[in-house]
C-alpha cells in the first residue's frame, strides 16, 4: 500500500537536543557478546517505537535485525530523553540512534582498513563483520571498547544505510504477548510481594475527614492500613484480599462534602472564565474580518486506557526508592517523586515497564506515587499497586475542553482575504516537571495546603492548546488569538494531539463552510490556498483514493480534511464516507499520510489506522459528562467505539526517502474529526459544530 513519490529534498533537520547531552557513541549503543544493544530514553507505549529503533540500528550498522535488543528504559541506564510524547520519538531518538550507529559503522571500517591495509571502499560489513581473506574484524572485537567512548561528532560518516532482506521492522515481542507470556507492569512479581489498593473520595466529595480502620485491619491477610493526611490505602499479602479490604475501608470512611463544580457541556463556561487574549500569530492587515463566523466546541475527552494505571515500588534499607512504572517519562517522574517525598534526586530510580496504552498523561505517574507511599510503610518489601477502574476513569487527567471561533472574509474571487481564529481552553500540559510545583494527586492529599497547579501550554512550535491553531494555508491576513482558561472544573493534561484535535476540527470544518459560501469544491478550495507540494500531494491522493469525483449515493456523503501536525511534522489528509446504514454513521475513512522517510511501513500503518479509529471514537461518541458532580466511573458512563461500530479504514503512505522521518501517532486525529463533520454536511446538509457528532445530534439537526 506504500506509494513512492518524487520530491525535492527539504532542508536537513536540526540536531536533536538530547545528542548534546549524550555525545558519545556508547551513550546510545552497546555491543555485548554477539548482540547489539540500543539504549534509548523513549519508552514503548504500544506505538512500535522500539521495533523502529531496532530497524534503524540494523540498517545503519549492517547487522541482522534479530541481533538488536532495545534495552529497557530506566533512570540508571538510559539517556535522558525527557518524555515519550509529541510524536517525536523517531525525530529525536531515531536520529540519535542513526547518528551513533553511522559513527560506529565508520569506525569499524576505519579499524578494519588499518588492520587489513585495505582501502575503505573495498570493505563490506556483513551482519556486523568485515572479512578480508581469512581475517575478520567485527563490532564485538576489542577496538569497540574505546570506540564506544568516542564522540560521534569526531567521526566522519557517509549515508550508507542497507535495506537488506531480514530488516522487515516487524515487532518481535508480539508472539509472547499473544501467548500470554509477555508482561505488563501489572504482571511484575517479587519475593514477598504485597498488594496495595488506594481509597479516594467518591466525587463530588473532595477529602477524607475520618476513617475507622478497625474492621479492615481485622481481615486476615491485611498487612497495614496506610493513612497520611488525606492519602489512604491498604496493603495485603493477597490481591483478592487487598481488593476486599479497600472496599471495606471505603465504607468506614467519612468524607468531607465537596461542592459540585458544574459546567455546561457545550463550553460557555470557557468564555465566562477566559483570561485576557494573547496573540499567537499575526500576519497582514489586522482589521476585522467581517464575513462568515462559526463557533466550534470540543468537550473534555478521556484517555480511557483499557488497563488501569499501576506501579511497583520498593524502598531499600538505606532509604532509596525503586519504582517500576509505565510512565512516559522516567526522568521527570524520578524528579517529581524526589521532590514530593523529600529525597535527593539520586535516591530515586525509575524503570519503565509497559502498561496499557496511555495516549498521553493518564494515571501512570499518580499510581507510581501511590505505590511509593504504600511501600514506605514496609521498607524492603515490594508493593504492587493497581488502580481500580473507578480510580482510572474518575481520576485520570482528561483532554481539555475547547471552544474555537473562526471568522473569515472572502474576496471577489472566492479566496480567503482575512482569517481570524480565537480559541478558549484550559492548558494542555499538567505533567510532572511542567507546572512549577508537584502535580500528582497524592501530593495534595499528603499536604492539604498544597494546591495542584493548573495545566500550562508550552510555547509554539509544539504548543499545547495553540497546537495547529495557525493555519498552514496561504491567507494574506491572519490573526490567531488564545484565551487561556485557568478555571479547571476537571483535572486536565495532555491527551494525544493536544490542542491540534480541536483546532484542526474547527479550521477544517470552517474551510468547508467557506468553500460552500464561495460555491467551490472543498478539495479545490484547499488547493487554491496551499503552496506546499507535500500538502497538495496528500490532499490529492486522499481525494483520488476516496473517490472524490464519484457521485454520492442518496443519504450518503463524503468529507475531506487536511492538516500538517504542528505545521512542521507529518502531513495527513482524510476522506470520510458516511451513510445511513453505518452504526455510528461513518462507513469508511481513507487516510493519507506523508511522514518523510518511512522506517517501517507496517508500523506507520498500524499507528495511523489506530489513531484514525480512536479519533473517530472521540468524534462520534465521547464526552466527559459529570452526573451530579461525579465524573465517569466505568465504561457504561464513558462508552467508546466497539468492534461492531468501527468503520472501514484504508491507509496510504507517501514515502519520502530523502525527507527526515517523522512520527505519525497524532497527525490523523484532527483531520478525522473534520472530515466526518464535513461528510455529514455533504450527506444531510446539516452543519454540526459541537463534538461529539452523535447519531442523536445528527437526527436532531435534521429535524430542525
Amino acid at each position, binding site marked *: 500500500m506504500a506509494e513512492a513519490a518524487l520530491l525535492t529534498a527539504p532542508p536537513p533537520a536540526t540536531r536533536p537536543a538530547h545528542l548534546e547531552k549524550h555525545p558519545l557513541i556508547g551513550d546510545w549503543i552497546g555491543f555485548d557478546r554477539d548482540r547489539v544493544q540500543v539504549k534509548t530514553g523513549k519508552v514503548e*507505549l*504500544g*506505538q*512500535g517505537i522500539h521495533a523502529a529503533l531496532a530497524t534503524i540500528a540494523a540498517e545503519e550498522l549492517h547487522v541482522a535485525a534479530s541481533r538488536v535488543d532495545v534495552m529497557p528504559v530506566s533512570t540508571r541506564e538510559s539517556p535522558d530523553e525527557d518524555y515519550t510524547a509529541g510524536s517525536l520519538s523517531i525525530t529525536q531518538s531515531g536520529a540519535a540512534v542513526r547518528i551513533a550507529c553511522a559513527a560506529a559503522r565508520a569506525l569499524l571500517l576505519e579499524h578494519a582498513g588499518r588492520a587489513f591495509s585495505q582501502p575503505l571502499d573495498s570493505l563490506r560489513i556483513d551482519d556486523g563483520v568485515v572479512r578480508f581473506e581469512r581475517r575478520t574484524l567485527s563490532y564485538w572485537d576489542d577496538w569497540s571498547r574505546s570506540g564506544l567512548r568516542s564522540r560521534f561528532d569526531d567521526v566522519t560518516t557517509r549515508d550508507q544505510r542497507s535495506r537488506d532482506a531480514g530488516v522487515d521492522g*516487524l*515487532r518481535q515481542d*508480539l*508472539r509472547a*504477548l*499473544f*501467548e*500470554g*507470556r*509477555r508482561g*505488563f507492569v*501489572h*504482571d511484575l512479581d517479587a519475593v514477598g510481594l504485597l498488594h496495595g489498593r488506594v481509597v479516594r473520595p467518591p466525587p463530588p466529595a473532595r477529602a477524607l475527614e475520618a476513617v475507622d480502620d478497625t474492621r479492615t485491619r481485622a*481481615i*486476615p*491477610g491485611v498487612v497495614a492500613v496506610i493513612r497520611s493526611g488525606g492519602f489512604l490505602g491498604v496493603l495485603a499479602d*493477597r*490481591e*483478592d*484480599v487487598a*481488593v*476486599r479490604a479497600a*472496599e*471495606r475501608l471505603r*465504607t468506614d470512611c467519612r468524607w468531607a462534602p465537596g461542592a459540585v463544580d458544574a459546567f455546561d457541556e457545550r463550553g460557555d463556561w470557557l468564555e465566562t472564565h477566559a483570561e485576557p487574549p494573547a496573540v499567537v500569530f499575526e500576519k497582514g492587515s489586522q482589521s476585522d474580518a467581517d464575513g462568515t463566523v462559526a463557533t466550534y466546541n470540543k468537550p473534555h475527552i478521556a484517555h*480511557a*486506557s*483499557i*488497563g*488501569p494505571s499501576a506501579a511497583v515500588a520498593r524502598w531499600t534499607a538505606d532509604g532509596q526508592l525503586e519504582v517500576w512504572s509505565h510512565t512516559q517519562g522516567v526522568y521527570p517522574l524520578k524528579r517529581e517523586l524526589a521532590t514530593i517525598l523529600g529525597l535527593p534526586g539520586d535516591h530515586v530510580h525509575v524503570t519503565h515497564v*509497559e*502498561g*496499557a*496504552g496511555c495516549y498521553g498523561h493518564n494515571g501512570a505517574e499518580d499510581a507510581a506515587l501511590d505505590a511509593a507511599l504504600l511501600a514506605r510503610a514496609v521498607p524492603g518489601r515490594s508493593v504492587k499497586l*493497581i488502580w*481500580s*477502574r473507578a480510580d482510572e476513569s474518575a481520576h485520570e487527567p482528561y483532554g481539555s475542553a475547547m471552544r474555537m471561533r473562526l471568522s473569515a472574509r472572502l474576496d471577489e474571487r472566492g479566496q480567503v482575504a482575512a482569517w481570524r481564529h480565537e480559541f478558549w481552553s484550559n492548558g494542555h500540559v499538567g505533567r510532572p516537571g511542567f507546572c512549577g510545583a508537584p502535580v500528582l494527586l497524592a501530593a495534595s492529599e499528603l499536604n492539604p495546603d498544597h494546591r495542584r497547579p493548573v495545566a500550562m501550554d508550552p510555547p509554539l512550535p509544539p504548543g499545547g492548546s495553540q497546537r495547529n491553531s495557525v493555519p498552514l494555508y496561504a491567507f494574506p491576513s491572519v490573526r490567531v488569538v488564545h484565551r487561556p482558561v485557568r478555571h479547571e472544573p476537571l483535572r486536565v493534561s495532555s491527551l494525544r494531539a493536544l490542542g491540534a484535535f480541536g483546532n484542526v476540527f474547527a479550521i477544517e470544518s470552517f474551510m468547508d463552510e467557506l468553500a460552500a459560501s464561495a460555491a467551490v469544491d472543498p478539495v479545490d478550495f484547499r488547493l487554491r490556498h496551499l503552496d506546499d507540494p507535500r500538502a497538495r500531494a496528500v490532499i490529492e491522493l486522499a481525494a483520488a483514493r476516496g473517490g472524490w469525483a464519484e457521485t454520492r449515493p442518496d443519504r450518503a456523503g463524503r468529507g475531506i480534511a487536511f492538516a500538517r501536525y504542528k505545521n512542521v511534522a507529518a502531513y495527513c489528509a482524510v476522506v470520510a464516507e458516511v451513510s445511513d446504514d453505518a452504526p455510528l454513521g461513518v462507513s469508511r475513512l481513507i487516510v493519507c499520510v506523508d511522514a518523510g522517510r518511512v522506517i517501517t511501513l*507496517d508500523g506507520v500503518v*498500524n499507528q495511523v*489506522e*489506530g*489513531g*484514525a*479509529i*480512536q479519533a473517530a*471514537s472521540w468524534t462520534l461518541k465521547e464526552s466527559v459528562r459529570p452526573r451530579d458532580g461525579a465524573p465517569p466511573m*466505568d*465504561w*457504561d458512563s464513558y462508552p*467508546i467505539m*466497539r*468492534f*461492531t461500530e*468501527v468503520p*472501514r*479504514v484504508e491507509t496510504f503512505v507517501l514515502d519520502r526517502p530523502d525527507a527526515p522521518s517523522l512520527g505519525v501517532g497524532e497527525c490523523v486525529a484532527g483531520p478525522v474529526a473534520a472530515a466526518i463533520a464535513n461528510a455529514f454536511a455533504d450527506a444531510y446538509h446539516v452543519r454540526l459544530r459541537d463534538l461529539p457528532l452523535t447519531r442523536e445530534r445528527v437526527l436532531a439537526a435534521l429535524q430542525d
Partner: protein
Amino acid sequence: MTGVEPARASTAFELNGRTVEVDADPHGALLYALRNDLGSKGTRFGCGLEQCGACRVLIDGVVSYACTTPLGSVAGRRVTTVEGVATALPELIEAFVRRQAAQCGYCASGVLVSAAALLHANPDPTDSDVRRALDANLCRCGTHLRMVRAVLDAAEARRG
C-alpha cells in the same frame, strides 16, 4: 462479596488441560487465582465489571468473565485461558503475529479468547460474525480491524 469472612477451602479444576488446586477464599475472583496462585498472567484485569472483556476466559467452552466468577464456582470444571487458546489454536496466534494485530496489546488476551469461542462454534465466519463475537471486548488503540482480519485468516487456515 463484602461482609463474608474469607474461608480457606480448596478448589480443584482443570486449567488448560491439567488439574490444578487452589487453596484460597472460594469467594475471591477466579482472575486473581489464575494470575497469582497459578502463575497464569495472560488473563488481565480491565474493569472488574464485565464491561471490557480483558479478563475473558472459557469455562466449559463458554466465554466468561474471570473478574466476576467466584473461584469456588469453577470446581470440577474446565477453564481455558489465553495460554490454553494459544496451544489449542496455533493458527490464531500465527495470524495475529503475521497481521501484527496489536499496539499496546492489553486487550489481546480477552480478544483471543472471544475469537477462540467463535472459531469453535463457527469455522467459516463472516466479517460481521467476527465483529459481533468480539463486540464485548474493548480496544482503545484502534487495532480492531487488524484483529478481525487475523481471526478471518485463522479461520481460513483452519479450514484449509
